[in-house]
């Protein structure tokens, strides 16, 4: 398991999935998809984006994307392009790939370690649209797909508040405090009134995690 990936992150992400046509980034996102398929979502269909025809004809039919990013901001916008200014970046990232069109059309679950450098008020570059800058923005620019529905980290789960489009804390993993999460979040993080604790792994999940673990 790579740094910042915790079993609770995989569990919390996997539990969001019910089925459907899915693509996932390598690493934790794919581990979460496989965990879901091995437990409660056997009908989850995992596509390989390298399959011929995927980009122009298949991608638009994807229902769920599990992805990661270098930065996520208060509106769930994602950055995998550059840190700093686009023309003179302090760091070049891995690029857009399929992320922009996936975030436009599918429901997106974002997995990444909860660190202050990644959870920024505003991403340096919008590689893929979350809520942009407010609750009506996606529709206004013509994004009719769902977009990011959850950001799952090693500390908890954030989801967009439909009223504001801002990410708020909805789930806390066992042993984590709201203060810990806020300390690693670069904006004044709201906490849902319905904040729940992530349930510990069931026997089936534990078996699948052990079986499919690295």
């Amino acid at each position, binding site marked *: 398991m790579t740094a910042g990936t915790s079993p609770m992150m995989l569990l919390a992400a996997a539990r*969001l*999935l*019910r*089925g*459907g*046509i899915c693509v996932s980034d390598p690493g934790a996102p794919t581990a979460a998809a496989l965990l879901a398929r091995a437990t409660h979502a*056997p*009908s*989850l*269909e995992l*596509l*390989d*984006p390298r*399959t*011929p*025809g*995927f980009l*122009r*004809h*298949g*991608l*638009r*039919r*994807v*229902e*769920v994307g599990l992805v990661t990013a270098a930065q996520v901001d208060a509106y769930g916008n994602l950055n995998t392009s550059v840190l700093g200014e686009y023309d003179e970046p302090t760091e070049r990232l891995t690029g857009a790939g399929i992320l922009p069109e996936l975030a436009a059309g599918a*429901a997106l*679950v974002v997995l990444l370690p909860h660190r202050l450098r990644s959870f920024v008020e505003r991403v340096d570059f919008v590689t893929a649209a979350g809520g942009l800058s407010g609750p009506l923005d996606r529709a206004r620019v013509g994004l009719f797909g769902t977009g990011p*529905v*959850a950001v799952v980290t090693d500390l908890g789960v954030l*989801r*967009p*508040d*439909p*009223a*504001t489009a*801002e990410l*708020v804390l*909805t789930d806390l993993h066992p042993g984590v405090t709201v203060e810990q999460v806020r300390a690693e979040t670069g904006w*004044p993080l*709201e*906490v*849902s*009134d*319905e904040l*729940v604790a992530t349930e510990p792994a069931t026997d089936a999940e534990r078996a699948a995690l052990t079986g499919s673990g690295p």
Partner: protein
Amino acid sequence: MTGRSRVGNVRVRSSTTTVPPMATISALADALDALVRNGSEVAWEGAPVAVATVLARRRVRDLTLVALNPGISGDLLVGAGCVARLVTSAVAGPDGAVLPRIAAADVEREDHTATGLATAYDAGAAGLPFGVLRGYVGTDLATVTRVATVRCPFTGEDLAAVPAIAPDVAIVHARRADRAGNVDGLVGVGRDAVYAARRALVTVSETVEELPRTELPGVAGLLVAEVPESPVPADFAAWLAEVRA
């Protein structure tokens, strides 16, 4: 910012339906009952005679038939009165002669070039409302069919645009299938028609034990039916009487 967040335990895709495997082997009649309704728009790319026979028996009406060339099976379907509208680029039999029932039929027609229709299928497959091609230039087709002009935003060049085809159902033919629904020979325009359509039936001449996994990323719910080579009816009137019996 709201004090009381309305975010609850939203779940991704909470519908209770499950995704079927990519393809399901089906009996031809069952597949057609499930897929084709009166008024359906049907992409018809290589459908065998048996499909026309089943649809004619079912007295399906008012179909829009889209085909590069409807072939003999499409000609029978038109002859049986199942079709109200034809979108084609050619209407010729294997002998090169015009398809007789189609030539005589009183149906609405939209004539295209073969590349125009292939482009329209590709656009449908890509979820776009139109496709672009170099075509129709200097022809009278351009004046009678649905073709428009788009300007390249980079070079200023004018090109032809055709409306996408996104049919209710695609009925296409491939060589073989296996029992898991993998299909051999679903390529080219037939493949694009499957991607463009809401649902699809692939007819195959043969079912074999095992084929390589078919790569149609994103296509769910494909039906596959084995259809034995059915002879071309020697006598259209007899065929029509038989299906109407």
